[in-house]
């Protein structure tokens, strides 16, 4: 957070059918619908999040991720980030306030990996959903499905990992928590954090720019992961893999797909990090174990199915 970027704030996901997507993201994951706009976009939040929304669904004829936004602590930091991006040779578009409902001015740029990111300071504070501010109960009743706690991170596939790392570390103030190196010590995966989390954003090397691997949502316990897997079966939702554990981050996980083919993850636990921790390194000859710690085999679908 050394440059003032605090945390992931939102992700806009393209879907082929809004009603099917809402049944998935609200009925199955347990996000809560908060608003809609005149473009037909639907704004969702997870119950522990304090701002109004974190997931925006938009109708499109090609699924994937439009952009991921990070919240910045204050306007002075945002202005400094704007100058630093321009000095780094990055084009920045300024999106006016309320283009996303109840969100302030956003700075938008494209990473060398081909993904669109945004930085913003203000979004309407609505507090955690369903519990009081004072003397809060442990959790709200009335949540649906998996009852996910928060939008946590995205994993993105693209090229130019080195220049993307340079941008995220030296301009945006992230730090590298974990990496996978191939036989030539080229980095083929990089996990970056702003916080104590094992990752706030991750990239895996891929020849095409701008591809979306998954958006991940946090659950509290392994029991919650098992319950999520039960719900995936009950709803006949397309599963990718799990429940299992990752080697990378050591998080416990399950992967599945939304009705438009975008991959989701729910996960719990795993490693913590501080900026003084050296990056954890995996070698690509152990990639199977790095990705799926129990199977210890590379799953082609995990590596190649993208939106």
């Amino acid at each position, binding site marked *: 957070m050394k440059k003032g970027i605090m945390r992931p704030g939102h992700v806009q996901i393209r879907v*082929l059918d809004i009603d099917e997507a809402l049944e998935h993201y609200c009925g199955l994951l347990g996000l809560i619908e908060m608003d809609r706009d005149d473009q037909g976009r639907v704004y969702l939040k997870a119950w522990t999040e304090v701002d109004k929304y974190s997931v925006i669904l938009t109708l499109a*004829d090609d699924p994937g991720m439009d952009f991921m936004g990070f919240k910045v602590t204050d306007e002075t930091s945002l202005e400094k980030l704007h100058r630093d991006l321009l000095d780094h040779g990055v084009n920045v578009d300024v999106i006016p306030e309320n283009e996303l409902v109840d969100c302030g001015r956003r700075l938008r740029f494209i990473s060398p990996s081909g993904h669109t990111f945004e930085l913003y300071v203000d979004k309407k504070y609505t507090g955690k959903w369903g519990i009081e501010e004072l003397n809060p109960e442990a959790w709200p009743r009335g949540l649906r499905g998996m009852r996910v706690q928060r939008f946590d991170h995205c994993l993105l596939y693209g090229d130019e990992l080195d220049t993307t790392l340079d941008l995220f570390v030296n301009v945006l103030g992230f730090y590298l928590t974990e990496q996978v190196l191939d036989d030539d010590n080229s980095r083929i995966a990089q996990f970056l954090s702003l916080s104590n989390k094992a990752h706030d954003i991750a990239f895996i090397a891929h020849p095409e720019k701008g591809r979306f691997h998954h958006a991940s949502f946090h659950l509290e316990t392994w029991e919650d992961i098992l319950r999520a897997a039960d719900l995936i079966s009950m709803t006949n939702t397309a599963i990718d893999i799990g429940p299992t554990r990752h080697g990378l981050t050591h998080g416990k996980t399950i992967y599945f797909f939304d009705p*438009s083919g975008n991959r989701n993850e729910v996960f719990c636990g795993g490693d913590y990090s501080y900026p003084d921790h050296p990056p954890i390194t995996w070698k690509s000859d152990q990639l199977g174990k790095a990705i799926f710690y129990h199977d210890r085999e590379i799953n082609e679908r995990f590596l190649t199915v993208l939106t």
Partner: protein
Amino acid sequence: MSINYTIHDSYSGAVINCTSEQNVLSAISLDGRCNVLVGCRGGGCGKCRIDVLDGQFECGKMSRRHAPEEAINKGKVLACRLYPRSDLIINTAPDIGK
């Protein structure tokens, strides 16, 4: 009402039953003889693209990136979103641009 059709894969020679309510991927991936990859199962990733050589069909929503209109008209569709409306002859050969 569900109607039974047969799917003939010219690549493997497999002949597989599929109902009008069932997507073709779910039928042919269970059989194992067809050369089809199971990806997202939501019309998004393009892994299950096959050729329909003959027969009537309907398709659910598919990513335009992987199934543009002109490809659909030539029968190049995603099996996860393909529903038969007659018996079908398909081709699951690996060289059709998956």
